[in-house]
């Protein structure tokens, strides 16, 4: 019999990109097989010019839509999805802090296939989380044909 991965808490950061849905579905599939739970978070980056708890209307609206969609996907897949909206100065540290606070076993991050200047780039958040997260991190990169027209 295959050995279980001993993970029940999965953290999925979302940001409204197309890759979100596939990442969340992957997380739900794994979580369901492990009888675990998925924590879906959306982090709003707040500029320094504003206090951290400032209400940023358009971003909050967008975040709530994304999180509602995440809950629906959880229902569809028969997996418990707990959603949370966070405000932070930077996304990477917020994800790591959340993982520490909730005692997360695996962070599952989705990223699109992007070549902003002709070169493939990981951006800032994924490398930060890979470097600083205390738990396991799974990066789901979207396939090339999905992102490129």
């Amino acid at each position, binding site marked *: 019999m295959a050995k279980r991965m001993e993970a029940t808490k999965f953290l999925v950061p979302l940001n409204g990109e197309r890759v979100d849905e596939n990442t969340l579905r992957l997380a739900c599939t794994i979580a369901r097989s492990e009888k675990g739970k998925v924590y879906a978070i959306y982090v709003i980056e707040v*500029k*320094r*010019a*504003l*206090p*951290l708890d400032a209400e940023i209307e358009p971003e909050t609206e967008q975040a709530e839509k994304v999180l509602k969609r995440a809950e629906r996907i959880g229902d569809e897949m028969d997996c418990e999805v707990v959603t949370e909206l966070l405000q*932070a*100065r*930077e996304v990477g*540290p917020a994800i790591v802090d959340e993982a520490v606070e909730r005692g997360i076993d695996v962070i599952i991050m989705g990223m699109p296939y992007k070549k902003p200047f002709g070169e493939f780039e990981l951006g800032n958040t994924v490398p930060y989380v890979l470097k600083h997260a205390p738990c396991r991190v799974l990066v789901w990169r979207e396939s090339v044909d999905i992102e490129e027209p």
Partner: protein
Amino acid sequence: MYIIVVGGGKLGYYLTTTLLKEGHEILILEKDPAKCDAICEELGSVVVRGDGCEARTLAEAGTERADMLIAVTNEDEDNLVACQVAKHKFNVPRTIARINNPKNEALFKKLGIDVTVSSTNLILEHIAEEVPTHPLIHLLTLTGRNLEVVEIKVPPNSAAVGKRVRELALPPQSVITLMVGKWGAVVPTLDTILEPGAQLIAVTRTEAKEALREAITATKGAE
């Protein structure tokens, strides 16, 4: 309180650590990317790479909503400019600047920096405290009042020994507030007699410090 610290050197780093422990929201502005990375690694996202003298950087840092800006770089010019821009463009209520060259202290005060801290003077004062023969030690500056609290030792051969406080030629607005002698600490009256070797705590105007020292420490022959 939202506090911006300009300069992420040793002083900026330790200042930030202390202020974070007190629960303040802190942001360090630092030009050097290596220092930024080191601070970020240690303290999290409390640092922004940029020049604290530039209005654009200060605007991005949210200086408009800052309660205080503390400039602690190694360059007096940078500290002055950062404080001035913060004060006059962003109306920051309180600015504090580190001064490396004591000669610049008067200029900083003239240009409206709220508080200046001269690191060279502080080191000098601490060294002076350890020199047993040094008769006058600066203890505290009373902000905005041009008054200082100083400690003076009464040399055994001073002309002031055995005199009553009322007989001393103290400069105007100079007050002896405490005398620590062989009988312990006493609040002196005008009739208190100065003991040899006693330590006096006095409040005086900055420009009268020398005259006060002279009044307490001048030897009998020099009177």
